[in-house]
């Protein structure tokens, strides 16, 4: 903190007409804490302040300043202002690494229907292939890639994708990482980790739908 300012003028000098209001205002503005200036209505353009403030008021303010010692830097407000000035907002978006915030318990449950080999577990970034059937709570099947009898003629392949990369709904990403090759599991996924408030417009999945998937993990690459 800077050294305390000293009085430039005596009372008589202050009262004198030779001392312009502007000089007094300037001194106070230069040396007083922001809140002090605010209270005494000494903020802003010197000319404007000079128009509205009377000499007597200025003298009182001047004296009060030295009595209360509310100089620049004594205000908590000023510190914040200094901090604000010091904050550098970079123009280019920074490398923001989205950290997984612990949001609480997982929003899905898994029941194993058929055990896997318990050795080949996929890691993030691995390509997994699965057969699956998705149903709503009321039993409506909204999606499946398993060939039914009628579809036998058409070539169907298991769904392949890179797991753990946010390409699929979170319930799948999290659930599949816990499965091993050959495992068939039933994943019941809360809407927050599925399609949430929006659901999947123009499909059978309504808003806030809990989804139930029966998934068989056939391959891990």
């Amino acid at each position, binding site marked *: 903190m800077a050294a305390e300012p000293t009085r430039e003028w005596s009372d008589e000098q202050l009262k004198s007409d030779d001392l312009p209001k502007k000089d007094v205002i300037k001194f106070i503005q230069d040396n007083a804490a922001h809140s002090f200036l605010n209270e005494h209505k000494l903020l802003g353009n010197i000319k404007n302040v000079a128009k509205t403030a009377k000499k007597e008021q200025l003298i009182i303010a001047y004296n009060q300043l030295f009595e209360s010692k509310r100089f620049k830097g004594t205000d908590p407000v000023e510190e914040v202002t200094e901090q604000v000035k010091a904050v550098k907002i970079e123009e280019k978006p920074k490398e923001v690494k989205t950290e997984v915030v612990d949001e609480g318990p997982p929003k899905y449950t898994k029941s194993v229907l058929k055990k896997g080999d318990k050795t080949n577990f996929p890691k993030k970034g691995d390509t997994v292939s699965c057969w699956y059937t998705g149903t709503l709570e009321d039993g409506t099947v909204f999606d499946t890639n398993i060939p039914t009898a009628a579809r036998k003629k058409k070539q169907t392949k298991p769904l392949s994708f890179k797991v753990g990369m946010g390409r699929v709904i979170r319930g799948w990403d999290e659930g599949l990482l816990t499965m091993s090759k050959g495992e068939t599991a039933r994943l019941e996924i809360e809407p927050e980790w599925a399609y949430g408030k*929006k659901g999947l417009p123009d499909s059978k999945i309504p808003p806030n739908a809990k989804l139930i998937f029966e998934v068989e993990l056939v391959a891990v690459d």
Partner: protein
Amino acid sequence: MALEQLSDVVQRCQALPSDSYTAEDHDIFTIAGRSCIEEGNSAQVLSIVLDEKNQDMVRCMGWNLLPPLIPVLLKKEDKNLPQCLAIFNHLIQTCRPKELLIGLLEQLEQDDPDTIAESLHLLLSPLQKVLLCLGSRKPSSLGMTLSSVLDQVAKLPLPRTKEQEEDDVFSLCRCCTDLTDFVRPFVDEARQNLLTTKTHSEDIDKTTAGQDEMEDELATELLKFCMKTLSHPLLEVQLWDPDTLPVSPLRMFATEILETLRAIGESLPSLVYQPLLRRKQVPGFLEEEVRYPKESLASLAHLVFVHHLAADTFPSVFSPVFSLRCTMEHILLLLSRTEDFRIQKGLELYEKSLVRVEDGSLPADLLEIKTFLTVPQNLVKVMTICPRHDLRTRGLKVFQLSVDKFDTEAKYRFFQYMLKTSNHSGVEGYIIKNIKNQIDIALQPGNSNTWFEGVHLLPLLRKVLILPDGPETDLLQYLDRIMESLNLLRYLVIRDKVTENQTGIWTELYKIEDSFMKPLRVGINMSRAHYERELHNTMEAKKKKKAKEEESVLSVSVGDEKLPSMTSESQIQALHSALHTFDMIESVLVRIEELVQVKDDP
């Protein structure tokens, strides 16, 4: 004459083995045969062609008779039609496929739309028959045929309304239907091939050469075909939904194309999400980008996500944010050119992708992806310079929708970016209004954040509350921006109590006065003086009736438009209008000054 020549050469050749026909024999047959048909002697030609003894000759040379036959078949009212049709059918049965193919393809080439459509309708079926007879040459010949056919289709005018599709005056829809029928057996074959290949992976296994290669080639040609049709005509036509147009040949055609893709083993998700997936390199004779042209994939994405074709086979497991990231590439492509239909599809695709995402959920790190910055830039162009009003309006709607989907930090950074790069006063004004809304939300209890109040707000405000060129700023050109800035400032001064100063505006105010309010005052005064002078001059000039002779030194812009040289009456009106504008700006400025004063003296 011609008939005699034809009879002669035929008789002569009856006795010879087919490999000893001379070139002269060929020529005579061709010329004479063609003349006979053209002269109307098709009945005689028919009997020659059907004669048992002549079959070797017909097999060798018959295909040369195609050129005169086809115009007859296309004309339909010709009295020789039945005979010519009979000749034609016999030739198709008898002649060598390779040569027939050449002959038929030649006849596809037409110039006027009516003939193009008719010849396609006529020739696709025989072409199909011929191709099915080809052995190992089938895929490449099919490819060649499809390429020629599509070139012809490209010459047909496209229906632009629902009614035009129904009327199908230029037969584009019929051609598409014919085309679907044409490729069907080849698609079935490709599907069969796929079922019998050894591996199930996406890489086509090259264990056995020959047979496998041919199967691959067939799939490759069909892929080329699909990709081409996705570009034209499918990208350029408007598809109508079942509610609007229950029977739509174009929608059927699009559906069939998607089905064909599935039949040849292409996965729709892989195709539409391709921008983000690193596809395995398929060893073959096409490079990946040529194999999957970006424009075709964009068209495909639109069909899948906007028209929901093949929706029941598209997996419902992908995350909406991932889907958005992929489609941004397609959207960028669609919005980067100026054709109406592309922009419309780009906007539709963007809207559909955004609607699936929850408000305020997209994080700021998405802005590190280039398309998340370039798409808004293209959107700005649509909003500001697209000639169609409905597209400009829709563009703005989608723009706001995209803003709403960002989380708070992302909004902040996006606004910063747009203020810096849009270079358009209207857009900047719109962004500033958004900033005001965000501040308003942040000030509500429970919503506080560091972006629109607190630490980060002031740097943003400093970029808003400035005059681009100081006191010399052209106030009319920057009107939208200036008005919104003033509105924002007025809002802050009213809403944020000086004792609370949540936004920091009160501590900043003296700076704002210096950098914004005072220069604005000066600017208003200067502009007003200037325009008042011009008004005076113009009125004087008008009085002296020299207006028409004088060169107008004054150039006036009102809003964004520079007005052409006007009559002095119009000039005077424009000048008055400008002066009113300055009054308007000044009134808000004065109001702010009043409010600030009031806070200073309670």
